[in-house]
């Protein structure tokens, strides 16, 4: 290496300043949100000591399932730098399809659910196609969708306007709790699986001749996951037990995080959201990626809508309406997924739903009115978006556009 290159080498920043800088610039936005969540919990616990009780925490988990599932799909669209305003309406329509097929037409519940999910997927793919084929802004395509699918919901429900769901297979989705034993078995499996993934990843790096992560780091990560898992299962077991809904939400979070971070498709999503021109020149099929992302958003919206109906035991004209859409988009944004595309993670769907759900749940416990609830949630969202914008400005100031 020549002297010129040697002297020009950028000095590696010390690990401490590097961590601090990333924290400020928002790369560790999620950690900031975890701290924020802790603050929210402490505040509500001091106001009402039932907030952190096992019963209320179990309720909280059930309350966030539907929004969390919908948010997973929203994250994919946000990562592209786009938005899907139709997810609320799609969730309502999909739930109505399931209810009508099952209740009115006597379909097998599983078939009805498959049909509902397929409806959401088809809608998402259609919207993605319209967006990428005609270059209509996603905001407009999905705004039109919001109206159209709400109309479709009314149409599907027909004159009754409301349908009660009695099928135990469907209502069981949100109302099944497992015994303590099953809870602990699941916990053990989760911990073993995570440790296995960490170990295999390390082995592979070493086998390829790369520097492996230090032993301390690996042990710490596994210990952290184990501790969280054990605490969560212990809390849930001391109330009604591990809810099926939470298990399904977590399975989707992990699965879709895997797709986003570890597969070629996921990599292309981030690339399109980060620099679409670079992605195009790298030979990535932009349209295919976009249609797939919107398809995922529609699919997850349908799944979330079916859970909401299962929990409510009914589908009505308000299903998927009111604030559901806004909360499903606000959640990931609050938890650090950028509205500008290219930055974020699927698990922010869970974290964001926890933040919003905690605020809503806590204020219900304090018997605050909807008026206050909306204003506080709005304030938190605004704060989060401002933080996102500031982080972006600082990146730009540092030459990282």
């Amino acid at each position, binding site marked *: 290496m020549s002297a010129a290159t040697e002297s020009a080498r950028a000095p590696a920043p010390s690990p401490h300043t590097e961590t601090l800088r990333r924290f400020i610039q928002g790369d560790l936005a999620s950690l900031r949100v975890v701290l924020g969540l802790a603050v929210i919990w402490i505040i509500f616990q001091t106001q009402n000591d039932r907030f952190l009780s096992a019963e209320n925490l179990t309720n909280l988990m059930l309350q966030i399932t539907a929004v969390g599932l919908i948010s997973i799909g929203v994250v994919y669209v946000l990562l592209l730098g786009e938005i899907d305003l139709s997810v609320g309406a799609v969730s309502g329509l999909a739930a109505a399809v399931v209810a009508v097929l099952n209740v009115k037409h006597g379909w097998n519940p599983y078939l009805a659910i498959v049909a509902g999910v397929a409806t959401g997927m088809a809608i998402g793919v259609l919207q993605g196609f319209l967006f990428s084929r005609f270059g209509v802004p996603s905001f407009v395509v999905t705004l039109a969708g919001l109206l159209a699918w709400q109309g479709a919901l009314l149409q599907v429900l027909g004159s009754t306007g409301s349908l009660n769901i009695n099928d135990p297979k469907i209502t069981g989705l949100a109302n099944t709790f497992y015994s303590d034993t099953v809870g602990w078995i699941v916990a053990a499996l989760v911990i073993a699986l995570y440790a296995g993934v960490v170990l295999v990843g390390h082995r592979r790096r070493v086998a390829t001749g790369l520097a492996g992560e230090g032993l301390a780091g690996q042990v710490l990560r596994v210990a952290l996951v184990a501790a969280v898992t054990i605490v969560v299962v212990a809390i849930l077991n001391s109330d009604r037990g591990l809810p099926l809904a939470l298990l399904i939400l977590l399975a989707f979070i992990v699965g879709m995080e895997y797709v986003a971070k570890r597969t*070629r498709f996921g990599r292309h999503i981030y*690339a399109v959201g980060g620099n679409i021109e670079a992605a195009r020149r790298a030979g990535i099929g932009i349209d295919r990626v976009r249609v797939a992302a919107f398809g995922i958003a529609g699919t997850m919206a349908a799944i979330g809508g079916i859970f909401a109906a299962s929990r409510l035991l009914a589908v009505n004209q308000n299903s998927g309406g009111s604030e559901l859409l806004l909360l499903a988009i606000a959640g990931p944004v609050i938890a650090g997924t950028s509205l500008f595309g290219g930055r974020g993670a699927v698990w922010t769907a869970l974290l964001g739903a926890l933040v919003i759900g905690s605020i809503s749940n806590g204020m219900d416990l304090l018997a605050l009115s909807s008026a206050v609830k909306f204003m506080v949630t709005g304030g938190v969202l605004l704060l989060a978006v401002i933080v996102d914008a500031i982080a972006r400005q600082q990146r730009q100031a540092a030459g*990282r556009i």
Partner: protein
Amino acid sequence: MTADAPLLEVDGVSKRFGPVQALDRADFEVHSGEVVGLVGDNGAGKSTLVKTIAGIHSPDGGGIRFDGERVSISRPQDATALGIATVYQDLALCDNLDVVANLFLGREEVSPGAGGVSRQLDEARMEHQTEELLSGLAVTIPSLRGEVGTLSGGQRQQVAVARSLLGEPRVVLLDEPTAALGVAQTAQVLDLIRRLRERGLGVVMISHNLVDVFEVADRIVVLRLGRSAGEFDAEATTEEHVVSAITGADSREKTQ
């Protein structure tokens, strides 16, 4: 420089955009193991020429020979398939992705075995290959897992050049590789260009900066108003001669 046949030969290529004659029977060649500086004033046709070779524009007239064979390059993929890589001025990097991800963008490796079924990216293998490629080029990057957006301009340029080498090209076209770089960073990039030459690649470097061109080029080709307006041996000429060819101040400078 080299006595053997040129690797890439542009023969009387013309390109017209509406009323503008961007290229007017331009000639130009590059051999393997040679750095050619392509210079000219704004609007002289440098970028159009490079884009024509890269398959973004198709020429209205004239032809391109690669390895002595007449080839038709109508799409960027054609150029890539021949072994012509292009690094544009805007670099086309994803700032939100790390160095490894950018290098392998669009040609990610998938794990063998069980990982392949789940379509898992082979991060370890890609990182290893990145490490080898960059160290082979003596490029130093603080962290291969750091976002490209955190790198300096010179490092970003080096990453972009390194990426173009993954397809094992034989000719690399660099569009203003030293624009907007500081002195030390420019030195890094020029070093990298020399190493491309050592590897036997034909390098075409477009630049406004004659100092940089003289620093690294073996031969300098001047474009003026879409025509080849002079060709100089970098060792045997002076900046003045090249400048007068660029501005057209002295038309006697035409070739040697």
